[in-house]
């Protein structure tokens, strides 16, 4: 049996007296979607940033199985390797699309940036890839030269997903991908995401406070409270038969999750 794609062991992060993350461990297999849920301030986003290497952990380690099969601790990667990993094998979908997109660069340029960063120097090919990806995220091809500042919120989010997936990553981090979108747009985006994750065999870590999102997208979930994982397991099991009191409260407080 091969090692998991990503394994996290004993991750801790403190902000002064506050324990943002306390001794968190989990593993993620290839093609598996993991949801991290919990109320706001429970450390979900901190955990995501720690795992993605955007934040430095106080202790603990994150080990990732690279494309060549070697398992490497993220802390042992050089800055150049880490950044190369971020733009090829990983994706990061931000809640706020303006953080993940270049708002004044056309949609085609946004999608093409990763390709150009890894050395593609053929305009025609980059353009074709951009058009292909726009179609896959259901954005009309005629919008390819419009900057995302002219896009609606849902379109921006889909463009952000296209931009991240164009290099065929194996792992995507998502921070509240449907936050701030209205319900019908959310449903469409979730549908699209679910399709892409299944088609591409993507592993994903999805931070959300919305249990419906977790239910729809993830295979497994972690429930966080005050920087600790209080419950973890298969999504359906956790949502249908919550064990921890806090999870029971969370589940019962949502209408028909």
């Amino acid at each position, binding site marked *: 049996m091969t090692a998991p794609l990503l394994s996290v062991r004993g991750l801790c992060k403190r902000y002064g007296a506050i324990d943002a993350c306390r001794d968190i461990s989990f593993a993620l297999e290839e093609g598996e979607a993991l949801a991290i849920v919990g109320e706001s301030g429970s450390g979900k986003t901190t955990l995501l940033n720690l795992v993605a290497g955007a934040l430095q952990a106080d202790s603990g380690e994150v080990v990732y199985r690279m494309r060549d099969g070697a398992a490497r601790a993220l802390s042992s990667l050089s800055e150049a390797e880490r950044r190369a990993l971020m733009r090829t094998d990983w994706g990061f979908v931000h809640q706020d699309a303006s953080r993940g997109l270049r708002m004044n660069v056309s949609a*085609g*340029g946004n999608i093409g*940036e990763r390709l150009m960063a890894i050395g593609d120097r053929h305009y*025609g090919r980059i353009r074709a890839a951009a058009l292909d990806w726009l179609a896959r995220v259901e954005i009309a091809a005629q919008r390819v030269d419009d900057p995302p500042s002219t896009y609606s919120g849902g379109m921006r989010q889909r463009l952000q997903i296209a931009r991240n997936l164009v290099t065929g990553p194996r792992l995507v981090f998502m921070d509240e991908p449907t936050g701030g979108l209205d319900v019908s747009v959310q449903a469409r985006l979730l549908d699209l995401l679910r399709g892409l994750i299944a088609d591409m065999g993507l592993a994903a870590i999805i931070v959300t406070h919305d249990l419906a999102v977790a239910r729809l997208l993830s295979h497994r979930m972690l429930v966080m409270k005050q920087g600790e994982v209080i419950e973890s397991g298969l999504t359906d099991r956790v949502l249908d038969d919550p064990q921890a009191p806090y999870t029971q409260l969370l589940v019962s407080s949502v209408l028909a999750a």
Partner: protein
Amino acid sequence: MTARPYNFAYLDEQTKRMIRRAILKAIAIPGYQVPFASREMPMPYGWGTGGVQVTAAIIGPDDVLKVIDQGADDTTNAVSIRAFFAKTADVATTTDTTQATIIQTRHRVPETPLSGEQILVYQVPIPEPLRFLEPRETETRTMHALAEYGVMHVKLYEDIARHGHIATTYAYPARVADRYIMDPSPIPKFDNPKLDDCPALQLFGAGREKRIYAIPPFTRVVSLDFEDHPFERTKFDAACEFCGATDSFLDEVVIDDRGGRMFVCSDTDYCEKRRAAKTKDVAQ
């Protein structure tokens, strides 16, 4: 005997040493932007404070200085800087490209090929080629350090997507010695090929941004492009109205209020020499 009103070439010796150290480092790492402690100069930013400081640091009593602004020797900026050094360094000045040992320039490379005896000093307004896409200085420095230059092509991609061809015509980014990408100051892209394998030392000074960078003699300078949209030098349909040159960079001059216009060489020295040669031919 009264003391001289200025130190030689205006700047004090310690400042010149500091700038020379920055220049040496810049030459050692072609295309790398070396920070330096840019001084207040007796002229506003944007008038060539960076170029003037570089020139002041390298000029000696035997040097012959030429200053051009957009190729012309007779514009305010060029005349003022030439007068500045004539006064503070008491050096000979010239408008003849071949006679000069130091040529300070704003926005052009002379048409006459340079020799290994010459130094070309550029006045640079914005030295950072990545600034267009990345406003954070910490981030651009990291990108340079790791040679992450993908975003430069995003800029060119945008050009092609919008205009059907690479529409950047000045400050066209180039890769120096297969490593650093630099902004060759706002020279027209017509001049970019002249940077490549040039026998003269080329120094770039940005006074407001406090950066110095350099292209040593005979260094490879490649303008960025796409495989299916290669770099193209600007071509003109016209010839110079005065000297008939078809191989030089032309300025478009509006000559009346009825849409009349003409094209003339931007390099005044080149144009005048060609005209002088023609009159000589006619006289003979």
